[in-house]
């Protein structure tokens, strides 16, 4: 280990693995370490025995749950947008070859206490119980405008300047009703609170386009989401492999590892079991750095529930998402439900896993999840996890520490990848060019 590297990466969470892969491809000599004996850190998918070790040390899983290794339980549940940034990075780096994905069956939204499918196309919109006939027509007109909108072609703007016009005004222009706005803003544009209404409309128009472009990215899909077989923990492993293929060295199982600093307080290596690997800078998740280099931005509460059935009222789907817009539950931010099953090789035969997650708003986070848990039906086993989401407050140019943010409650990976791309730019001074490969493919 007493060698020198360009960079030591601490923690094998998805963000650290993406960065490790990208930096290795860029020609840097990378040493990647983790205190745990498994890949994925905070964003791992755990086997049953690993899960019990984490949440119920000393107790064994019930026999009815089947073999431990049949389970790959995500610690941070999210789905991937089929046309989103993560897919772009996967395609760009050809990491896709290590993974297999399934389309998520459906995306649902809570309205007035009932679960509705978010219409994926015209036919579903017509049949949808989300709104009346006239409202359907107004929504359709709004969506046609959005899909036709082109930032570079003023003809498509219909005289409106979306860089200034608040989103609430754009909805008003098309006469879209409040309940429709609720599902368009939260379950289609995927905003996690209503704060977006006062902001310029352009961002929401782009997010709405991303949603529908993702729905049509693959044939046979009825939602904008995809999910990897064997769970999200496959993603960090796949990027770690990319890094290794480009010469990255991997050392798991380093419980005592610490970042080493020089006299000026600049990170200069990583020490573990008495030896030190020298490097020019360090990348890592907040848990590997002194607490004063980061701060708690918010807390997230998550429930993991094992079930013997799909979530009721979701068409017996093996994979779904349910978005509960803040207004529907009287909260300040949305709550999310995810479900996947043995069909994704994440649970033993016949079992389903439902996840609920939300940003913590009160002193009793677990109680906050009640309205979501009520949608699930009987649950065989459940685990709760409350975690602090930390974000860096240090100056990497001074201390050589490039620290990733924790994983937020959002339903997909857009913010995850944005964080990686921003750090990549800070480290290399260059933007990652994602357009090149995409172009050669078409």
């Amino acid at each position: 280990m007493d060698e020198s590297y360009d960079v030591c990466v601490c923690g094998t969470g998805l963000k650290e693995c993406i960065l490790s892969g990208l930096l290795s491809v860029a020609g840097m000599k990378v040493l990647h370490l983790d205190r745990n004996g498994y890949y994925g850190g905070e964003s791992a998918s755990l086997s049953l025995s690993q899960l019990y070790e984490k949440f119920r040390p000393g107790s064994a899983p019930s026999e009815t749950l089947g073999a431990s290794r049949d389970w790959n339980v995500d610690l941070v549940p999210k789905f991937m947008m089929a046309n989103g940034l993560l897919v772009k990075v996967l395609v760009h780096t050809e990491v896709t070859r290590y993974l297999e994905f399934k389309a998520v069956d459906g995306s649902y939204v809570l309205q007035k206490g009932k679960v509705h499918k978010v219409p994926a196309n015209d036919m579903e919109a017509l049949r949808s119980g989300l709104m009346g006939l006239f409202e359907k027509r107004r929504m359709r007109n709004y969506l046609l405008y959005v899909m036709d909108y082109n930032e570079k072609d003023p003809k498509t703007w219909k005289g409106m300047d979306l860089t200034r016009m608040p989103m609430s005004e754009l909805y008003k222009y098309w006469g879209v009703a409040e309940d429709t706005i609720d599902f368009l803003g939260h379950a289609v544009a995927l905003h996690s609170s209503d704060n977006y209404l006062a902001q310029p409309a352009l961002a929401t128009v782009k997010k709405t386009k991303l949603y529908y472009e993702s729905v049509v990215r693959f044939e046979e899909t009825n939602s904008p989401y995809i999910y990897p077989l064997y769970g999200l923990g496959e993603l960090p492993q796949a990027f770690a492999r990319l890094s290794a293929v480009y010469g990255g060295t991997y050392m798991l199982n380093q419980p005592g590892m610490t970042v080493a600093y020089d006299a000026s307080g600049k990170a200069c290596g990583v020490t573990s079991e008495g030896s030190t690997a020298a490097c020019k800078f360090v990348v890592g998740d907040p848990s590997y750095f002194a607490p004063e280099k980061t701060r708690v931005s918010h807390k997230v509460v998550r429930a993991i529930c094992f079930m013997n059935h799909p979530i009721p009222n979701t068409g017996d789907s093996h994979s779904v998402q349910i978005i509960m817009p803040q207004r529907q539950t009287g909260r300040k931010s949305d709550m999310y439900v995810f479900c996947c099953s043995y069909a994704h090789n994440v649970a033993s035969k016949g079992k389903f896993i439902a996840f609920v997650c939300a940003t913590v708003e009160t002193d009793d986070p677990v109680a906050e999840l009640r309205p979501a848990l009520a949608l699930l039906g009987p649950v065989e086993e459940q685990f709760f996890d409350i975690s602090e989401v930390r974000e860096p407050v240090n100056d990497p140019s001074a201390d050589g520490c490039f620290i990733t943010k924790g994983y937020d409650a959002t339903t997909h990976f857009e913010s995850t990848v944005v964080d990686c791309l921003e750090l990549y730019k800070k480290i290399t001074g260059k933007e990652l060019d994602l357009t090149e490969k995409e172009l050669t493919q078409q």
Partner: protein
Amino acid sequence: MEGTIVNKKLVLLGDMGAGKSSLVQRFVKGNFEDYQESTIGAAFLTKTMPELGLKLEIWDTAGQERYHSLAPMYYRGAAAAVIVYDVTSPESFARAKSWVRELMRQGNQDLVMALAGNKADLAAGGDGSERKVSAEESQAYADENGLLFLETSAKTAQNVNELFTALAKKMPRAPPPQQQAANTVQLGGNASAQGRKRASGCC
């Protein structure tokens, strides 16, 4: 026979420098380099064996085995494993045995395993004094554990094709169960051709 090519994943394991990458290089590209760099870059090779209706996806360790840090993904879905040691290195033979144990722990019943005693050319030349692991000992170990066994040389090509062909013949033909899973989507490659078909139809 059209359309009957099945993809199978084959993984390599073994000590650093035992010759994993050289064996793959010899098998896939038909050449050998005296100063093969420790694996970088090309750790994902494929070889089609039309006569057997197979396309092998060959995974090389990419150095992740150095500190025992291979990811579960590496073994996942593998139909075959080649465990390589160097006949001039007893340490590499001991390591090979520990890889065999590790693979057996993974509990994949359908996995076909082969033990390759590589660098046989070093043991064959002159008085063979460089040999440190006897073929008899390895054969006995392989028989005990139900492994195929061959001594190979990536340098002279001895037994290299034989090794991969013997493995390929032993692999179960049916696609692994998870590949029958419905509605999997393929990213990359033909993804953009697949998509955009319904590009007009949102709400």
